[in-house]
């Protein structure tokens, strides 16, 4: 899709395959959107960025897949569900955005920071891990055991997550091995 915003995109016939993909990935009501704009009007992300949920939905329905999944603003939705609670057509715009993000990630559109967060769960069982001794000390200082009973102190639980993320294809999706290799090299250089 050659998309400099100033050039109109010519659409003779909408390509419905993208909408089908979104419906299958968790946004089954996307086609009911009648473009009232209630979602964008309610949206705190749209109030401060170029993110426009109504526009994304319209573009998706027209089949403008590349333009939609490669746009950085797709990642400004905080999933606050305000639009979902107000949409008169039960489009479930928040779920639609999450589904579109799934398609984006499957097509390789994933921010480095997001890949790293995802990798933390594979590596430690937690997106925000107990990764420094100071966090253990913080726990001890409030009178708790330094390591909580979650995956932080239970390597078998992390093993289970590893098995899940392998079999579901998630490790591959986020490029886990490459990320780990890059991290290890970075650590070596520091030494």
């Amino acid at each position, binding site marked *: 899709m050659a998309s400099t915003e100033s050039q109109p995109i010519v659409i003779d016939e909408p390509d419905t395959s993208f909408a089908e993909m979104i419906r299958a990935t968790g946004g089954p009501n996307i086609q009911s959107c009648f473009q009232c704009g209630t979602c964008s009007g309610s949206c705190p992300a749209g109030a401060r960025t170029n993110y426009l949920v109504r526009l994304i939905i319209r573009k998706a329905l027209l089949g403008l897949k590349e333009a939609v999944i490669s746009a950085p603003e797709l990642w400004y939705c905080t999933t606050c569900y305000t639009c979902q609670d107000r949409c008169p057509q039960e489009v479930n715009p928040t779920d639609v955005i999450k589904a579109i993000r799934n398609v984006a990630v*499957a097509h390789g559109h994933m921010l480095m920071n997001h890949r790293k967060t995802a990798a933390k769960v594979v590596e430690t069982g937690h997106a*925000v891990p107990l990764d420094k001794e100071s966090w253990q000390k913080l726990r001890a200082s409030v009178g708790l055991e330094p390591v909580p009973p979650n995956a932080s102190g239970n390597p078998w639980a992390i093993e289970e*997550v590893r098995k899940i993320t392998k079999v579901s294809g998630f490790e591959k999706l986020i490029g886990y091995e490459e990320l780990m290799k890059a991290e290890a090299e970075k650590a070596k250089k520091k030494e």
Partner: protein
Amino acid sequence: MAKPKFFHFLGCIIPHRYPSIEKAAKLVFEDLGIELLDMVGATCCPAPGVFGSFDRVTWATISARNLTIAEEGGAPITTGCNGCFASLWDSAHELKEDEELRKRVNENLAEIGREFKGTVEVTHYVDVLVYTAGFDKIRKKIVRPLSGVRMALHPGCHWMRPRALKQKDDSERPRIFRELCETSGAEYVPYRDELICCGAGGAVRTADIKVSLDFTRQKFDSINKAGGADIIVTPCPFCELQLDLGQVEIQKHFGIEYQFDVLHVVELLALAFGHDPDEFGLKTHLQYMQRKSEPALDRLGLSA
């Protein structure tokens, strides 16, 4: 009557960054005669707006794995995090509604000898406090009402939204969280942007911290416009992190200084139940650790 029991789902931020919330929850639930059971080997929920945005099936599988731990133990789950609540509640719901998803999730779970059966109930601390303990019992435990303390609320999003699905409260005019917080005796301060998101969710904090903090600033400005508040109370540790540590980050990125003490609702109740701030480590909030400051105890009516 047998003591009500709940599996205590910790998640990541409570046990790893805001342990004072974990401690306060233990104190408050103990005071109310509710038992919290360790959920050994539980992982990240995993974060709904983050992992749900990356790959729905993997998100639902890791979440379902957590649910199976409680199913095996035969007790409902409670969590003090809106995000964890959303992941666990939503996945349990979606797995019951969507057969295709359930099939794929259980195929993944078979790999580790687990199966989602759909027998577990997922609750938030707010549900347990309001419906298991009840306002009457809570009011009886209030020995140090926070009279005169101006309290702004940040209910956050994922306990009550999406409204049609969760059926917890009217998300446009919520009252349950407010009623719960008002048992503490603090004075509710309404402000225009009470119901907007803190800005942290949906992987936005990780994607672009400045955009994320801009939401937070809007909330702070709105509170100040309403005459200011001594404390902001929330039922979520991720919101708490954004509102608490976020003040330090806003100062760094935008050069604007705000001074709010931010409390989780169980921290608020722990104080009102007569526990000293040091009993649960109020001063370990990351705002104070980084600013090398202290909670404004005088404003809370507790002399320093």
